[in-house]
C-alpha cells in the first residue's frame, strides 16, 4: 500500500527528496550544530566536557528504555506505550526493595551495597519482566487479529492504568531515594566532578547492550525472534512457537525496563509516578532516531538525545535553554519520522514511505 501511496503523492516532501535536497538540508543542519558546539567548546572547554559526560550518562539510561521499545517494535510492530510505565514501576520496586526492605542507605558499607544492589537488580528485572509478559497476555494478545490501531490504543490505556498504580504506590509528589551509590568524584575536569553514580550507569548499560546483541544475533532464541519478526506465519511453519517467542521478547524488554528503573532511581535519586510517560516518550524518540527495531541504533539515538538535552541546558553560548528542551526533542522526532523514518542506522523499508 505504501508503494501505491508514494507513487501517488507529489507533496513538497517528495519533491525535496526527488531533488536530492534532503541530504543537503541535513548536512547544513549538522554543520551548523557542529559549529555551535565547537564555539561552545572553545569558550568553556571544561564545562563542555562535563556536560557531555552527563549527557552521555543520561543517554545511556534512556538507551536502556529505548532498547525495550525497539525490541517489542521489532517483533510486533507495536509501540508499547506502557513500556515507560513498566520502567517507572521498576523504579518503584527497586526503591521499595533496596531502601525499605533491605534498608540500604548512604551509610551502608561497600560489600552490603554491592550485594544488596545485585539482589535488587534481580528483583526489579524479574518483576518488570513478568509484568510485561502479563500485559502482553492480557491486553495485546487477544487483539492480534484486530485492526492495526487497536493494540496501540490498548497500550495507551495500559499506560494510564500503570501510571495510576504508580500514583497510588508513590503518591503525587516526587519521592526522594537515599544516596546508595558513592557520591564522590571519579575524576575532576576544570572543577566539574564526574561521579561514581554516572560511571556505574555506563558500566551497567554497555555490557547489557552487548549481551542483548549476542542474544539476538547468536542464540537459537534470538534466531526465533528474528524469524518471528520477519514473518510470523512462516516462522510458525518452521516449528517456531510464535507465542512463546513473543512472550520471551516481552520478558527481555521488561527486564531491561527493570534495570533502567533501578539505575534511574540510583542515578537521579528522585522518582515520581509520571516519570515513565516522560522518559518513555524520550526513549521512544531515541529508538526512532536510531532506527526502530535496530538495537545499537536505539542506544546511539538515546545517547544523541541525552547529549542534545544536556548541551541545550548546560551550554551558555546561544543555547535555547531548558524551556525549549521538550520541543527540541519532539521536533527531532517529527523531522526524523518525516524525512528519514528508517532512522540513522535503520534500513529503508516500504512502510516508511
Amino acid at each position, binding site marked *: 500500500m505504501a508503494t501505491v501511496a508514494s507513487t*501517488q503523492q507529489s507533496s513538497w516532501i517528495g519533491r525535496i527528496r526527488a531533488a536530492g535536497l534532503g541530504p543537503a538540508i541535513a548536512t547544513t543542519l549538522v554543520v551548523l550544530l557542529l559549529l555551535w558546539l565547537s564555539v561552545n567548546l572553545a569558550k568553556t572547554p571544561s564545562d563542555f566536557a562535563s556536560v557531555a559526560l552527563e549527557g552521555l550518562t543520561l543517554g545511556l539510561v534512556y538507551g536502556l528504555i529505548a532498547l525495550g521499545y525497539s525490541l517489542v517494535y521489532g517483533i510486533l510492530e*507495536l509501540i508499547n506505550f506502557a513500556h515507560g510505565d513498566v520502567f517507572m514501576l521498576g523504579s518503584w520496586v527497586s526503591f521499595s526493595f533496596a531502601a525499605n526492605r533491605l534498608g540500604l542507605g548512604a551509610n551502608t558499607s561497600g560489600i552490603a551495597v554491592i550485594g544488596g544492589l545485585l539482589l535488587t537488580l534481580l528483583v526489579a528485572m524479574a518483576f518488570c519482566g513478568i509484568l510485561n509478559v502479563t500485559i502482553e497476555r492480557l491486553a495485546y494478545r487477544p487483539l492480534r487479529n*484486530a485492526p492495526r490501531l487497536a493494540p496501540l490504543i490498548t497500550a495507551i*490505556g495500559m499506560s494510564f492504568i500503570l501510571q495510576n498504580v504508580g500514583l497510588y504506590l508513590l503518591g503525587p509528589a516526587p519521592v526522594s531515594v537515599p544516596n546508595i551509590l558513592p557520591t564522590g568524584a571519579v575524576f575532576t575536569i576544570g572543577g566539574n566532578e564526574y561521579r561514581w553514580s554516572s560511571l556505574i550507569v555506563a558500566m551497567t548499560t554497555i555490557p547489557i547492550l552487548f549481551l542483548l546483541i549476542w542474544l539476538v544475533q547468536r542464540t537459537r532464541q534470538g534466531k526465533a525472534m528474528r524469524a518471528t519478526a520477519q514473518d510470523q506465519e512462516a516462522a510458525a511453519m518452521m516449528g517456531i512457537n510464535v507465542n512463546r517467542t513473543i512472550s520471551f521478547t516481552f520478558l527481555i524488554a521488561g527486564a531491561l525496563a527493570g534495570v533502567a528503573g533501578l539505575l534511574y532511581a540510583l542515578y537521579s535519586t528522585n522518582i515520581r509516578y509520571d516519570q515513565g510517560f516522560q522518559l518513555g516518550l524520550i526513549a521512544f524518540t531515541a529508538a526512532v532516531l536510531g532506527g526502530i527495531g535496530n538495537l545499537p541504533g536505539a542506544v546511539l539515538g538515546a545517547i544523541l538525545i541525552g547529549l542534545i538535552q544536556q548541551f541545550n541546558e548546560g551550554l551558555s553560548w546561544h543555547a535555547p535553554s531548558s524551556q525549549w528542551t*521538550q520541543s527540541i526533542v519532539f521536533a527531532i522526532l517529527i523531522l526524523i519520522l*518525516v524525512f528519514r523514518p528508517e532512522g540513522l542506522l535503520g534500513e529503508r523499508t516500504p512502510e516508511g514511505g
Partner: protein
Amino acid sequence: MAEQLPEYRQPWYHRWGGMLGEPRRRWRGMDDKHRDQANWALKALLVIVVAIISWPLALLVVALFAANYVDQYVPEKHAWARRALIPTLIAIVAITYPFYNGSLHDMRLFGAYPDVNTAVIMGVYVIMAVGLNIVVGYAGLLDLGYVAFYAMGAYTCAWFASVQFAHRNVHFGATGVGSSTPGFHINIWLLLLIAGLITALIGILIGLPTLRLRGDYLAIVTLGFGEILPQVANNGDNLGGFNLTNGPNGITPIDAPGLFGTSFQTGSGTFFTGPRLYFWLVLALVAITVFCSLRLRDSRLGRAWIAIREDETAAAAMGVPLMRTKTWAYATGAFFGGVAGAYFASFKSSTFPNDFSFNISAFILSMVILGGMGNVWGVMFGAAFLAYLNQEGLANIGHSLNQTFGTNFEVPLYQYGIYGAIIVLVMLIRPEGLIPSARRQAEFQEGVHDTPLYDARHE
C-alpha cells in the same frame, strides 16, 4: 493468519490470558433467536440499573429504546420520520434541560444532575469528540495530538477578542465591550468561523508532510505536535521580544458572544440568563457539527474515508486519492476542534497553556473509543458522559463512596486510571464501542483487516 480458537483450549494460562476476549466470542457464537433474547435481557438490565441511579434517567433510556423499536415499523415512504424520531426526542430533552434540571432529585452514587454550566462544557467536548471521530473513526487515522487544534482555536479566539494586543484598538461587532477598550475585539460568531478555518489550515499544514506515514508513526508525530504546541504557548510571552500568548499567565478575560446586543456573560433578565444562552448556543453548535458529520459520512468524501480505513491498498487501487482524502479528514477534524476551542475559550473567558496537555488528547480519544469509533451518536454519548465524570461525576462518586464506606479514597485522583481501564476493557470486550456503527462492528467481528497488526512486512 491462523485461527486463534484452539490455542485457548491448551494450557491454563492461555485460557486465562484470553479470558477477557471470551464473552465476545461466545456472543458471536449465538444463533439469532438467543441473541435477540439476550439483547432484550441486557436492555432490561440496563434500564433497571439506570432506574436505581435515577428514575427520570431510566425513563429517558426507555423512551430511546422505544423510539428505536418504533423505528423499524415506520413504513419506508416515511423514512424521514424514522431519521428524525430519536434526534427530536433528544433535542426536546436537551433544550428544555435548564428549566427542569434544578428540580430533578439527586442521582444515587452520582449526586446532583449536571449544572447548566457543566452541560455547556459537556457540549464543547461533544463537538471536539465528534471532530476527532472524523479523523479516528471515519478515516482510521489515530491522532494523539488533537489538543493542538483545540489550543489553536482557543488562542485564535483569545487574540482577537481580548486586550492582549493592547497597542491596537480594533473593534468589529463585539458585544458588551466598551469602544475605548484596547485590543482586538472581533464578533465572536465570526471568530468561531475564523478559528475553525485557521485551525483547519494548521491541520493541513501538519497533515501534508505527516499523513503519508503509516498509522502508528502518524500517531506519534501528532503526539509530538501536541507536546510542542503547549510549550510554544507557554514560552510565547517572549518570542524574540514579542508577547504572543502572555505565557503561563494566559490570556484573560476574553469577550463573550452576544446576540441582539445582549452579552452572554451578563445575560438578560431571568429567562435569558448567561448560562442558558451559552447552553443553547452550544446545543446549536453541536447540532450543526453532528449534521455536518453525518452528511460528510454519507458523502463521496466520507465513503472514501471509510474505504481508506478498511483497506488502504484497495481504496488506492479504486482510484481514491489517499493524500488528499486523508488531508481532508484532518482538516475537517481540525475545523471542529478549532470551533470548539474558540467557543470554550470564550465561555471560560480565558486560555492558559496548561489547558492543553497530552492528557486532554487522550481524554478526547477515550470519549471516541468508549462511544464507538465511527458512530456519531455513540461518540456523543461517550463525550458527554466522560466530560460529566471529569467535571462533577468523579468528585461526587468519590464523595458518595467515601460516605458509604467511611473511607478516605480520592477517586478523582485516579481518573486516568479509570479512563485507561475503560479504553482497555472496551478494546478487549467491545472494540466497536458502546453504540457501534454497523460497519465498524463488522470490521471488528469479521475481521476486515487489511493490515494484520503483528504481520508488518506483508507488503
